[in-house]
C-alpha cells in the first residue's frame, strides 16, 4: 500500500459517503438480494427481507465507521416514500370495498379490541420490567406504521428514532410469527388472519400477508390504515394517563 493510493481511496470514500448515491444503492442492493433469497426459500417467514437487510446494512455501517445519520440522510428518499405508500393503501381498500363492507362489524370490533389490547399490553409489560419512561412512551405506538408512529411518538414526548426501531422490530417479529401462530390458534378465516397481522405488524406484516394471499393482504392493509388512525387517538390518551 502506498500513501498516495490510500489517500485517493480515502478521498473517494469521503466523496461517496457524503452523498445519497452510495446509500441508496446499498439499501436497494442489499434488499434486492435479501428479497431474492426469501423467494428462493419459498418466502419462509424467517427469511424476512427487512430483517436481513437491516442487520447486513447495520454491520456495514459499524464496520466502516459510518454514523447512522450519514446513512439515513443518504437513504432518506426511500424512507420518505413510507408516507405515499400509506396513502396508496387506498387502492386495495377501493378494489375490495365490497368484501370489506360486508365484514364491517367484525372489522370495527377487532380494531377496537386489538388496538386497546396492544397498547394496554405494552403498558403492562413496561411496568413489569420497570422500563424507563422514555422507552415506555416510545413503545406505545409500536404497532402503527413507521410514518404514523414516529409522528405520534414525537407529539407525546417520545424518542421518534427509538420508536422507528421498535416499530420495525415489531413488524419483523409479527411478520415472522404470524403464519405459525395463526396456524397454532387454528384461525382459518383469511380475513381474520390478515386483519390481525396488519393491526399488530403494520406494513411489514401487510407485505408478508400479500405474499400469502391477496385477500389476506387486503385485510392486513385495511387493519394497518385503521390502526394508524386508532393509535393516533389512543396513544395521547395513554401517555397522559401514564404522565398523570
Amino acid at each position, binding site marked *: 500500500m502506498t500513501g498516495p493510493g490510500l489517500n485517493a481511496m480515502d478521498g473517494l470514500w469521503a466523496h461517496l459517503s457524503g452523498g445519497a448515491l452510495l446509500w441508496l444503492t446499498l439499501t436497494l442492493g442489499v434488499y434486492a438480494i435479501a428479497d431474492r433469497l426469501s423467494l428462493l426459500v419459498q418466502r419462509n417467514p424467517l427469511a424476512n427481507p427487512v430483517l436481513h437487510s437491516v442487520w447486513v446494512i447495520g454491520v456495514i455501517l459499524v464496520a466502516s465507521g459510518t454514523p447512522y445519520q450519514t446513512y439515513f440522510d443518504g437513504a432518506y428518499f426511500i424512507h420518505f416514500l413510507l408516507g405515499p405508500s400509506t396513502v396508496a393503501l387506498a387502492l386495495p381498500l377501493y378494489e375490495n370495498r365490497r368484501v370489506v363492507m360486508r365484514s364491517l362489524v367484525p372489522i370495527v370490533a377487532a380494531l377496537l379490541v386489538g388496538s386497546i389490547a396492544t397498547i394496554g399490553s405494552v403498558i403492562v409489560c413496561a411496568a413489569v420490567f420497570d422500563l424507563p419512561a422514555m422507552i415506555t412512551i416510545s413503545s406505545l405506538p409500536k404497532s402503527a406504521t413507521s410514518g404514523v408512529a414516529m409522528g405520534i411518538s414525537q407529539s407525546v414526548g417520545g424518542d421518534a428514532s427509538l420508536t422507528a426501531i421498535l416499530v420495525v422490530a415489531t413488524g419483523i417479529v409479527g411478520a415472522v410469527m404470524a403464519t405459525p401462530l395463526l396456524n397454532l390458534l387454528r384461525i382459518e378465516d383469511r380475513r381474520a388472519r390478515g386483519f390481525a397481522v396488519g*393491526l399488530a405488524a403494520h406494513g411489514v406484516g401487510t407485505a408478508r400477508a400479500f405474499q400469502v394471499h391477496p385477500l389476506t393482504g387486503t385485510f392486513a392493509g385495511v387493519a394497518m390504515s385503521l390502526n*394508524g388512525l386508532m393509535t393516533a387517538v389512543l396513544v395521547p390518551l395513554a401517555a397522559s394517563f401514564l404522565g398523570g
Partner: protein
Amino acid sequence: MIVGLAVVLLCQLIGEIFAYLTHLPVPAPVVGLVLLFGFFLMRDRWQWLPFSLRSEEIDKTCETLVQQMALLFVPAGVGIVQRLGILEANVLGVLTIILVTTAFSITVTAFTFRFVSRWFPAPPEHQE
C-alpha cells in the same frame, strides 16, 4: 407514473395541511388515504375529469408503492445501530414488549374478528 405519484403526494399534502390546521392527532398519510379512497369512488362518475386522471395510471403507481412497502422500512430499521446502548441496558424488557405484546396483539385481534364474524355473518354475495 408521474400523474399517479403527483396525485398520491397531493393527497398526502392536503392531509398534512389538514392535520396542521386542525391540530387533530391524525397522521397526514392516513388523511391522504381517505382522500384518495374518496377520489377512487368518485372517479368513475366524474366524466369531466381529464383522461390521465381517469386512466389506470394512478392504480399502477399505488400498486407499486404497496407491493414494495417492506423495503421502505429498512432505513428506519437500521437506526438500531444508534440506539444499541439504551436497548442493551433494557434488553429483557424490550424483547418481551416486542415478542409478547405482538403475539398477544395478533391473537386477540384474530379471535375478536372470528368471534364477532360468527355473530354477525357477512350478508350473502348476491345481494350486492
